[in-house]
């Protein structure tokens, strides 16, 4: 199910779990609004991670905690500190990229 959501002055399409269905609709303001919903106060370090995630997504590379740990952007420990309680799913939502899923 696809729903339209309004973030600030922008209307974007999301899936039922609140993940953007099209990265092209993402703006930094949209990311900021989603971060507020996730109770994350964004810093430059947070945005560095978001940039990396979006870049990997555009290159069609599947993301994992291991990949992020080896990215040179953050260590896994730092990643957890930046986005507590499920860093990959939360940062993916803020970045406007799909949630990492398994087959079911």
């Amino acid at each position, binding site marked *: 199910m696809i729903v339209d959501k309004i973030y600030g002055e922008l209307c974007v399409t999301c899936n039922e779990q609140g993940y953007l269905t099209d990265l092209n609709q993402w703006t930094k303001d949209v990311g900021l609004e989603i971060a507020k919903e996730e109770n994350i106060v964004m810093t430059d370090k947070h945005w560095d991670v978001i940039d990396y995630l979006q870049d990997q997504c555009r290159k069609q590379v599947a993301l*994992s905690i291991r990949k992020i740990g080896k990215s040179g952007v953050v260590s*896994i420990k730092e990643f957890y500190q930046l986005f507590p*309680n*499920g860093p990959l799913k939360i940062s993916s939502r803020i970045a406007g990229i799909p*949630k990492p899923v*398994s*087959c*079911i």
Partner: protein
Amino acid sequence: MKELLILGAGTSGTMMANHLRKALPKKEWNISIVDQEETHYYQPGFLFLPFDLYKSKDVKKKIDKFIPKGVKLINSKIERIDKDSDTVLLKNDTTLKYDILIIATGTDIAPQEIEGMLGEHWQNSVFDFYTFEGAKNLRNKLRTWEGGKLVVHITEMPIKCPVAPLEFAFLADSFFINKGMREKVDITFVTPMSGAFTKPQATEALEYLLKQKRITVVPDFNIERVDGEHKKIIDYADKEISYDLLVTVPTNMGDDMIERSGFGDDLNFVPTDKATLQTSVNDNIFAIGDATNIPASKAGSVAHFEAEILTENIKRYIAGQPLKKEYDGHANCFIETGHGKALLIDFNYSQEPVKGTFPFPVVGPLSLLKETHMNHLGKLAFRWIYWNMLIKGKHIPFVSATMDTSGKQLEKSV
């Protein structure tokens, strides 16, 4: 004569040997296949072995039994591929020249990737069931285990057969009920994903199973280390989960040979085009099954569907024609839920598993995303299909290599 070389005689490699011996003229093409093992394992059976539902003999046969006449089987370890000279160096110092290479070296567990996973407790209070030895040792443990906290755990994705850990938890519930000791066992399922189910339709249809089977789920747990002495697993957020018996799926990695050859990603999986199965390593190198980095499930059914498409693409490559961009990520998996029932899922890169019937609309006889006894019979029958049809490269009637949408309830899906 031209040389076609297949590395790995597991599910994928054996299927390709059978397909290609029929497809390529014997007067023009030699086909060789290399594997270090002498046994071919029926890997889906590793799920049943720990619960004494299968015996050891049900899951192993001689590897040469399935290699067709006209294909040379070489029993050796592989040192590395030299992509620039079109050769493969074996551990016994033999060099094999190829015109076309197919990498089918699969994936294996890598428990050494997590601090503290190996040690005195390995195969004592910490087990895997993704290897024959691991599954057999776990069976011996479960025969005498008196109960306590059972933790079923996924280290990181991707793993072979992503649903197997959940099936293990379901079958454990059944097993302990049948032994009359379910009250003595606490079952916890620990996953790095956002839940035991991650897709909307599957979550809606199947979430009840966890409650029914009294399985506690701990999501978003990315393990940092195992404290074997105190029987705890600890994640990067310093969250701790204690266990009496840990059944883990360690990190899955491609063969070390891929790393020695100078390509592969950080888990030694081969960069491969997800639609054609040609690698980006070289035009004459193809990859199939668990060895690739494509975003499909690492599963036998995926290898089976890929094999039909890769055979066509090898023929096209030889004829100098453009490759078919046909593989759509099709996978078809039975999921055991215990007590003689199972689910069936059929999906591809873009279509999540949904409800419906399979392989025929309305009449089935198998039901998608729904627990039935018929699905369980299908899973049991699959062992016969595997040994007698699948790895011999015979087409399974009514099941196409690309996903069929008929019989599926698609109107609700995204």
